[in-house]
């Protein structure tokens, strides 16, 4: 009962997998090629069940609730007793109008392979079915000796759309919680509640670095990372650029921004131009100082390091998403004696910035830099909100650790269940 030549091929492909077990590695390992094995293994030499495996007793298909829509769960009941079958083949068919699909069951059209699952499983989820159409499903057990009779669903099933993806509810709540913390403190700051934040040396150094560049009559180099605008670090880097360029405009220092993406160049121009405007220095803005170099990572680095050696900027800022180029930039900057301030959330590059730069903003500090630099109360307030969210995360970790410890010491008690519950609530 095999419906197409393609499935035949899949079965014979798999026969090698089964014979791998049955023949205890006598023939496959050296060959490593299934094509050679097709038809080569005399089935009777397996010394096992020669006939085809028994079919599934019953099969049902139902819509998966609260999913992304279009998914159907198919469950079946295997025949009792052991079997030499290795897997189930699941197929589907659209519901056809009467008269079509001759030779098949009523209204059932050509069968298409949906998936293959190991014999031990008794259900499969089929997703991304068109939610408007109904489908029949059938399963076949397959062993090296052949395949069983098919078992087909009695009625067609439909994967309905749902309004909300319930599996994502914990995630939704987590985002809501973090957002609530941040928003609460933004509003509190707006109402005039004083917000204190600790000092971050790297951020306090920014003003000094810009001032020094002005004194020395040299330029400032600002690299907003090498990724495009769809990376949040680039966006964070540009918010820092907005603040730094404002200071530069006030001090009348020249700022240079080489970018490795055209879009970033355009966005950086917008940010810098508006900052010069806000500082009342619209005339001093030079669009060509913010230029696209190349998308190629190391082409970009070749340019920037050559430029550094020739122009000798007094201050270098690296704020954004960096990869291997971090150390080339920072070491070149170090060799020309520039003040260097770096910020990135790319944890693999932090060691190099820490080793070669004067100041480094580590991960979350970089993300907070724009808020710090702006000095606006509501932005500072959002940092406080971030801290509260962090404290909640820490408390949840502590609770989880306590539960896990209890579960490890007393595996029979209530602790393991509590731990699983907590993980479930968090969406794991």
């Amino acid at each position, binding site marked *: 009962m095999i419906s197409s030549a393609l499935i035949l091929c899949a079965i014979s492909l798999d026969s090698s997998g089964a014979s791998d077990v049955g023949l205890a590695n006598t023939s496959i390992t050296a060959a490593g090629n299934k094509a050679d094995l097709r038809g080569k293994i005399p089935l009777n030499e397996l010394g096992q069940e020669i006939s085809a495996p028994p079919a599934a007793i019953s099969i049902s298909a139902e819509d998966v609730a609260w*999913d992304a*829509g279009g998914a159907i769960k198919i469950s079946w009941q295997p025949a009792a007793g052991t079997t030499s079958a290795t897997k189930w083949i699941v197929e589907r068919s659209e519901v056809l109008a009467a008269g079509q699909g001759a030779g098949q069951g009523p209204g059932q059209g050509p069968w298409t392979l949906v998936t293959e699952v190991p014999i031990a499983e008794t259900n499969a989820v089929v997703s991304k079915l068109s939610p408007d159409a109904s489908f029949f499903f059938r399963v076949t057990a397959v062993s090296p000796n052949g395949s069983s009779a098919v078992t087909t669903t009695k009625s067609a099933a439909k994967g309905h*759309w749902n*309004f*909300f*993806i319930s599996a*994502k509810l914990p995630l939704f709540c987590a*985002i809501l919680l*973090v*957002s609530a913390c*941040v928003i609460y403190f*933004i509003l509190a700051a707006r109402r005039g509640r004083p917000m204190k934040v600790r000092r971050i040396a790297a951020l306090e150094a920014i003003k000094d670095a810009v001032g020094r560049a002005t004194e020395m009559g040299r330029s400032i180099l600002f690299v907003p990372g090498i990724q*495009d605008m769809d990376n*949040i670090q680039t*966006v964070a880097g540009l*918010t*820092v650029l*907005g*603040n730094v360029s*404002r200071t530069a405009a006030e001090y009348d220092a020249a700022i240079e921004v080489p970018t490795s*993406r*055209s*879009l970033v*160049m355009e*966005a950086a121009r*917008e940010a810098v131009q*508006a*900052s010069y*405007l*806000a*500082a009342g220095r619209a005339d001093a803005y030079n669009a*060509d100082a913010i*230029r*696209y170099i*190349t998308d*190629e*990572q190391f*082409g970009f680095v070749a340019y920037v390091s050559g430029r550094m050696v020739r122009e000798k900027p007094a201050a270098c800022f690296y704020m954004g998403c960096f990869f*291997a180029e971090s*150390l*080339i930039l920072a*070491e070149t900057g170090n060799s020309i004696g520039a003040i260097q301030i770096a910020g990135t*959330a790319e944890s693999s590059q932090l060691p*190099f910035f*820490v*080793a*070669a730069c004067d100041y480094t903003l580590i*991960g*979350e500090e970089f*993300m*907070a830099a*724009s*808020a710090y630099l*702006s000095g606006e109360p*509501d*932005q500072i307030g959002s940092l406080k*909100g*971030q801290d509260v*969210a*962090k404290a909640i995360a820490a408390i949840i970790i502590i609770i989880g650790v306590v539960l896990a410890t209890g579960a490890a010491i007393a595996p029979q008690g209530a602790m393991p269940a509590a731990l699983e519950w907590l993980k479930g609530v968090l969406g794991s």
Partner: protein
Amino acid sequence: MAEGSPRIMKRLVPMWIAIIAGFVMLLSAFFPITESLGETVGEIFNVVAAIAFVLGAGSLAKVNLAKISRRDQGWGYAAITLICFAITLVVGLGKIGVPQSTQFPLLGWSGEKDAEGSIFGWIYEFALVPITSTMFALLAFYVASAAFRAFRAKNLEAILLLSTAFIVLLGRTFAGVVLTGWLPDWASGLRLENLSVYIMQVFNTAGNRAIIIGIALGVTATSLRILLGVDRSWMGSGD
């Protein structure tokens, strides 16, 4: 600049575009009908980024042409850049020298742009690859000079930094096996190669995990500041 409308068109409209687009994307993840919106927007982004290349190319040409016409110092190099740019663009877009594809030999444009025999492929193999990978290889030298300068036992933190690097360096080569391979089995945990694995699994995991959690919160807060219109420095700080 025109008066009146600019403030709305230049500040308010972009701000609301960002706010609406952001919240739509945030919420779309939770509803089946909109779940795949992120993928579509990803494709849109790629196309916009590819179109934006026109702007980048324009900036590149403008800056280099200005250098040449002003006869700035090093204007010859600017000319080389422009010539290389033009040649690569022409042979790449024109698929010059690309043989027919074996799948669809009748279609003139179906060959791989960097197939064997194409000029674009030649440029890739003999200019792009050697220069970029050598640039990358410079890191081996910079790693050494950075280590010589920065890894000095100035304080406790620096001692931890340099001794960890030391253990990992030793543990990840044959030298580690030679130095501590004689340790008996019951003390095998102290062998350098094992020690470096423990450092990775315990300290490194802890440090990185905290950084990752912190960044996740930082990203959420940063994004929220943008989406609430609190942080507008991406379109210029100030009002």
